[in-house]
């Protein structure tokens, strides 16, 4: 039990983002073994997507992490050495389709009310405005719109009185619908859609590559994001196009990027 360690020479390789795709046996403990190998080498996993595949007993993990090429390659081989792991493919330099799913709950009350709305947000299963304090700006906004609804119904008495600095019910409604419409426009531009609509917020669903999801979030951020959930990245390599026509692009670059992956090596062989 003698000691004495030899420190490896510090490598000056830059840290880059890597996408690893693991095909693993679908059984308990595999995720733990995979994440254990990465944790033991000090990797922080940026994103990790796991699900069973169309083949029985086979799961696919897509792992995104940052690190030096050499270190990641060593980690890849260690992962591939695990018994329940079929193959680990590094898709970092492969032409792939990358997608992640975003669910974002965005306020439609407007940025003036967002802080208050966020601060008073109750448990997620309740409407975002549940439990909002009496007299707070959000409460007034809500009350105004509720009152506006009530106004429209005969027989419902209105205790509404116009105050300095507050919105009239119609103003509140118009403002809300303007926000809703703009969020909807942005969402449509990104191929997303509104999947839930409530008094004070909408949930937008969209898919895209990481940069596109980031861009969407940047655009809706001014409206106030109450909550956002991202699935993490999934990838699938593009199939190469074969044609007798050589095309206009520089061939070398294209050939280099589409990395050979012999699909016959993939399970179940």
């Amino acid at each position, binding site marked *: *039990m*003698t*000691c*004495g*360690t*030899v*420190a*490896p*020479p510090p490598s000056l390789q830059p840290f880059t983002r890597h996408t690893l795709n693991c095909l693993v*046996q679908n059984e*308990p*403990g595999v995720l*733990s*073994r995979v994440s*254990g190998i990465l944790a*033991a080498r000090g990797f922080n996993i940026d994103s990790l997507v796991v699900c069973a595949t169309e083949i029985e*007993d086979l799961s696919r993990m897509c792992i995104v992490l940052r690190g030096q*090429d*050499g270190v990641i*390659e*060593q980690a*890849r*081989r*260690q992962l*591939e*050495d695990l*018994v*329940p*792991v*079929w*193959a*680990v*493919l*590094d898709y*970092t*330099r*492969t032409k792939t389709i990358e997608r992640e799913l975003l669910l974002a709950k965005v306020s439609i009350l407007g940025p003036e009310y967002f802080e208050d709305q966020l601060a008073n947000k109750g448990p997620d299963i309740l409407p975002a405005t549940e439990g909002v304090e009496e007299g707070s700006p959000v409460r007034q906004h809500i009350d105004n719109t509720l009152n506006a609804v009530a106004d429209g119904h005969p027989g419902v008495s209105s205790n509404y009185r116009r105050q300095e600095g507050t919105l009239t019910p119609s103003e509140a409604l118009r403002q809300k619908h303007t926000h809703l419409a703009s969020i909807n426009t942005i969402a449509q531009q990104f191929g997303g859609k509104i999947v839930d609509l409530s008094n004070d917020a909408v949930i937008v669903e969209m898919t895209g590559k990481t940069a596109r999801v980031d861009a969407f979030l940047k655009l809706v951020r001014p409206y106030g994001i109450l909550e956002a959930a991202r699935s993490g990245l999934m990838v699938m390599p593009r199939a190469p196009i074969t044609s007798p026509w050589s095309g206009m692009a520089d061939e070398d670059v294209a050939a280099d990027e589409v*990395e*050979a*992956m012999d699909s016959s*090596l993939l*399970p179940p062989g």
Partner: protein
Amino acid sequence: MSRSFSLSRRALSTLSSSTSPASRLASTSRPPCTLANGLRRGLATATGKNEAQAAVRPQPAANFQQVPTPSNSPAVAPLARPNSPNDLDKDFIGLSGGQIFHEMMLRHKVDKVFGYPGGAILPVFDAIYNSPHFDFVLPRHEQGAGHMAEGYARVSGKPGVVLVTSGPGATNVVTPMQDALSDGTPLVVFCGQVATSAIGSDAFQEADMVGISRPCTKWNVMVKDIAELPRRINEAFKIATSGRPGPVLVDLPKDVTASILRQAIPYKWTHPELVESNLPSRNRTHTATSQTGHEAALISDSALNKAAKLIANAKRPVIYAGQGMLSTPEGPELLARLSKQGNIPVTTTLMGLGAFDENNDTHSLHMLGMHGSAYANLAMQSADVIIALGARFDDRVTGKVDTFAPAARAAAAEGRGGIIHFEIQPKNVNKVINANVAITGDVLESLNALLPLLPEQAPKREEWFAKIKQWKEDYPFHFEPSKKGELMKPQEVVKALNDWSEAHGKEDVIVATGVGQHQMFACQYYRWTQPRSWVSSGGLGTMGYGLPSAIGAKVAAPEKIVVDIDGDASFSMTAMELATASQYNIGVKVLILNNEFQGMVLQWQDLFYEKRYSHTEMTNPDFVALAQSMRVHAIRCDNIADLPAKMKEFMEYDNNRPVLFDARCVKNEHVYPMVAAGKALHQVLLHPALKPVEQL
């Protein structure tokens, strides 16, 4: 034993699928003297459990109208062999989990089991009660069981089997499992677990063994249903022994081992030879899709051709052989052929000792690394081609990584040399040292493919061999002999053992060690010539490994002489296993190089901590009295004059009884040569009496 074993084998194959619980239970409940019983009894069971169960389900009355079924109708001929591995095997129906375990051990030809009983594993222990089919060794601590199984595996080449209980029983095997993982030793550990209904409830003696053992096993599994028990056992043996061997753990909840199998299961689950695991094959082709992973490409003719060309043209080649060369008996032969045909000197790692005949004066460089020979280390640093065979460039071998093998790197840059790495695990390629040619796959297969590519007549390389000869003369293993009236030098004791063994014949001697100075003296002063004659903890450096692993080695090869060269501190960690050896008449010889100190730590404290001996002095028991209290013969020697006679008495003592030799040695002896941490291999610290190494 072997007779009854073969009988049960034959009986099973002729019996096959037609055995139903009713017919078998009926047959075993009859008097055991009938011939029919002997033939019909398909499964070897250790206990009279079937008789007990037969009482529960009596035979139907004679006038009871039975519907003819395949199982009770004698007209249907039994299938000799299953038509397809997916056919259902009814043989195990009616057996308990413990009985299935017993039967599967027989099918895997397990003849020795090391273990310790306890609550959660009792159903299995009950099923192997009085089993005539294998020997059971009960250690005094589960760690002992694990190391014994390792020693058994190292000598026999078969996986060591450990059977322990849940909780503390299982956690005590963690050290042997990590040791086996570090050294690539096949080990199959079965541990008990609380009943599945109690898992996760912090039950008595519950430990999450699958979680605890995950990083220290190749693979592990909890058997959740009795129907999957045979399949999991098959997978465990397959994984432990394939690729780079290693430890596996099978967690057996008590209710699973106690329950009775009531369904037929496919033949492919019950027959080890049909095992078609749904786990990824260990022999699969590894992918090399990464840009940086070109070296991990499949074994290719081009890589072999390149390697052959480099070797043939090398001016100063050296072979660096590891434990991979010992995986089959063919390995050392291939290594000798490569060395002779290619005219290349050989150095071995600590784990590879015995793969090459060290008495070959011209071609053997002995061990390399931190405490390896100076000539091996200088050869590595000066070589233009390094051929790494089944070795993994451990940090004890490379010294400071960026100063390792400068000549080979320079030669690689000029395209006339480099490092050629034969490796079974792609993950080990370029892990520590970048290889110029990497050949993944079984090193023996690769070597078989490489040898025909080498030229018939290798260059003489006179200059290179002359240089090696000069190094050997200038920098031998050296120590100052003890003076009159002094305690012995530990090197003298190892030399005395070596002399006796040379005279007796080394093919009969196996040496195990603990970890520390005594281990290094054993490497340096015992001349290794025989494969699988060396059992030691390399990667993990587990003190206390010596005695239990020697017991395991002796169990694997009772006809041989097994010596445990141990240190006083190392021996003290597992000394109680001497009682095990005494109980089972396992004739191990324990040779303690007793300097009343943790010698290796003392050496580091001398060299790097200004002789502040922080907690390294040992206050030992009287080892002779300790041995005698366990009815073990013991010898003490404290001077060189008595040594040859006492060594003779020790080595020639009854080979069926343990014996202990307390060799009292001086305290302040250092292991030389030494490559200190952070130094290059050629910056070697020699014995003060030798002139320092000329710098490269």
